[in-house]
């Protein structure tokens, strides 16, 4: 007994020591990104394609020759979508290979926890399409970057869309919208905006929380059957999405009147429902499934054809894969921007990365050049606006694949801005943060 315990203790100690002392050889021309992924657990079906796309784009960047010669390197860490594991992963990876450049947690819960740590560690937190909506305000949230989309903007676009369908936002008066949401910070995000919009246009919002992990929705859909809302917004993640669609089918709620957020509109959510999900709509955070885009072809040709791709080939170009790819692209481009100021071909620090993220300016030409023509619209961030783009459209599942079914919408600044300012001011006050002024930004 004793011996075994000693052996265990010794090996534990050895690892502890090795964790302390093995600082890997560090080359100046490498740019390190931690990858907080989840490939196991309840959310794995959605987390995996994202991570694959994310890693594939970094591989592609390296094949293309890096950013002015600087190679991307990364290390994955499994979070299982759990906040404490995510924080541990972050702590483990942030100092490796000369320090993390930026971190993308892919979980609103982990984002909340890292928001506290980012200013101390000076590592930007990129949350493309998720995270806290008020962090769009770069004056208060100096290190959070909800690039390309926040939930408020997403909810806003959805309201605009159904307003348009009804023939004008004023026609929404007296309508009823049910929000079926994942009962977590993620799912609660859109509520503030929907209530704001409800006040403006006089529609009703019915809130229907679904407990983690979301396989129990019978009662929720019974309520929907009872109250017969005109539209159902779905703010789910992982298995909750497909369950919702199946329950909608089982209770006979028309899928055509269901609108998901961009995390509820990907292949894993609908593919095993198949025909049952026909007509189901979801927001597309700019991109949808893009099997025909140039960048996808390039990845297939340069990586997968040579056996270097991450994950299965069929997945390339799917919605969540593209989301990961674009998230990755944004950070690579921010490195490029930062290099233009701090020295081409040099490794940049987290602080310099922030400057890069705040001065991101991807016009259509640049996007086309990356093979993202038709996939994305231009993104331009600033010190005060950390979102950079408020475009989105709707796509619909036809039983086999996702098709775009709407024009581009843009989140309404007049609605979003006051809400962002108000909430972030409250946060600043609570945390005793002095908002940055435009002068601070110039530094």
């Amino acid at each position: 007994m004793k011996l075994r315990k000693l052996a265990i203790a010794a090996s534990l100690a050895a690892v502890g020591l090795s964790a302390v002392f093995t600082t890997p050889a560090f080359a100046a021309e490498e740019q390190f990104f931690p990858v907080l992924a989840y490939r196991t657990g309840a959310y794995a079906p959605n987390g995996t394609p994202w991570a694959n796309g994310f890693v594939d784009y970094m591989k592609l960047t390296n094949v293309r020759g890096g950013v002015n010669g600087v190679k991307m390197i990364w290390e994955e860490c499994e979070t299982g979508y759990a906040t404490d594991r995510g924080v541990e992963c972050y702590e483990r990876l942030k100092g490796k290979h000369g320090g993390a450049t930026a971190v993308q947690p892919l979980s609103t819960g982990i984002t909340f926890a890292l928001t506290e740590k980012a200013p101390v560690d000076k590592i930007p937190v990129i949350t493309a399409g998720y995270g806290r909506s008020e962090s769009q305000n770069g004056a208060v949230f100096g290190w959070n970057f909800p690039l390309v989309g926040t939930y408020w903007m997403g909810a806003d676009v959805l309201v605009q869309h159904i307003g348009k369908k009804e023939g004008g936002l004023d026609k929404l008066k007296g309508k009823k919208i049910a929000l079926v949401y994942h009962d977590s910070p993620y799912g609660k995000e859109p509520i503030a905006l929907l209530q704001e919009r409800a006040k403006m246009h006089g529609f009703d919002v019915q809130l229907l929380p679904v407990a983690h992990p979301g396989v129990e929705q019978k009662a929720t859909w019974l309520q929907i059957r009872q109250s017969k809302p005109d539209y159902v917004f779905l703010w789910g993640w992982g298995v909750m999405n497909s369950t919702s669609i199946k329950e909608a089918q089982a209770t006979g709620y028309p899928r055509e009147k269901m609108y998901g957020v961009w995390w509820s509109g990907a292949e894993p959510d609908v593919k095993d429902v198949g025909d049952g999900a026909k007509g189901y709509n979801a927001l597309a955070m700019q991109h949808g499934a893009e099997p025909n885009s140039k960048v996808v072809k390039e990845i297939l040709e340069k990586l997968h054809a040579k056996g270097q791709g991450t994950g299965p080939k069929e997945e390339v170009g799917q919605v969540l894969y593209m989301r990961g790819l674009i998230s990755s692209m944004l950070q690579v481009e921010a490195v490029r921007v930062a290099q233009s100021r701090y020295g081409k071909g040099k490794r940049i620090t987290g602080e310099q990365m922030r400057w890069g993220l705040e001065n991101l300016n991807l016009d259509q030409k640049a996007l086309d050049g990356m093979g993202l023509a038709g996939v994305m619209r231009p993104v331009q961030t600033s010190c005060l606006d950390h979102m950079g783009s408020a475009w989105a459209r709707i796509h619909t599942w036809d039983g086999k694949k996702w098709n775009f079914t709407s024009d581009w919408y843009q989140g309404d600044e007049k609605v979003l801005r006051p809400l962002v300012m108000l909430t972030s001011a409250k946060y600043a006050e609570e945390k005793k943060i002095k908002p940055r002024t435009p002068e601070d930004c110039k530094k």
Partner: protein
Amino acid sequence: MFYRENGQFKTSYKADQQVFAIPQDRWAILALVVFAFVGVPMLVDEYMFRAILVPFLILSLAALGVNILVGYCGQITLGAGASMAVGAYAAYNFMIRIDGMPALASILLGGLMAAAVGIVFGVPSLRVRGLYLAVATLAAQFFCDWAFLRIRWFTNDSSSGSVSVPDISLFGWTINSPTDKYLFCLGILVVFSLMAKNLVRGNMGRQWMAIRDMDVAATVIGIRPMYSKLTAFAVSSFYLGVAGALWGFVNLGSWEPAAFSIDRSLQLLFMVIIGGMGAISGSFFGAAFIVILPIFLNQMLPLVGSLFGLEVSIALVSHVEFIIFGSLIVFFLIVEPHGIARLWATGREKLRLWPFPH
């Protein structure tokens, strides 16, 4: 050789009954504490502090609480996470709603609040026990999960339901660096474990153990089961509440109810059972085992894989981690159902007699 008591004679009951009756123990523990306060901060890096040591300290405290209830009083609980949540949210509300509330005071008040709630959830223990009680405490767990998720008042109307606290300070000492956090938790843990050790040695602890060993007999010799069970629930919840507040304030900084979910409760129960029920030191062993093992496996497996020239994907790593973790638990339960603390005690007994075992 050095661990022998020859020539040490106790001349009073007081000396015989003290916490660490053997001087070597006393010195060893003292040295350990001093090392933890002085040596560790100089030796380890930030990652160790943030990812391993601080969680370890806080969860030890929580495991201590669970051990009081499960190990000493014999009342099994699956609602430990709920008590932690109550402590964390109560402390948060004290801190936010009362101006100028010192952090330490709000943490302790959070603990008291958890104790009050713990008493309420302890009531079913007067009627049922064993597995039925476990289920009753699960009810508490799910109810708390729900309450902190749904009732907006608790989270100060935060739109996302996630709350966050500013850096805490103690008599002008701002606790924000990892070392500060570590020292702060360590200080609290040392005080609380001494308290726990003395509690279980005293009148109250003996009542608990009597109830645990046989409640009918305990009643016959004049122990009030209601009083002692509920005090066990209260004290245990107090510890858990303080641990929960620390977990939120110091370790996470901002949290949501998922931080105190059923998984946390099970994890704590694991700690106690693997560490050793009814042994204070067991809580530390258990916490160390449960905190370090997954991280250890997680980092170790890719290395092992690379030895054999395999690229191990993180998905596989975490699956294998599950498998090893589970089998180790079963293994431990088979080999030493009384936990690591018992192993430790056996080892110590042997050492006391060594090299003349007979």
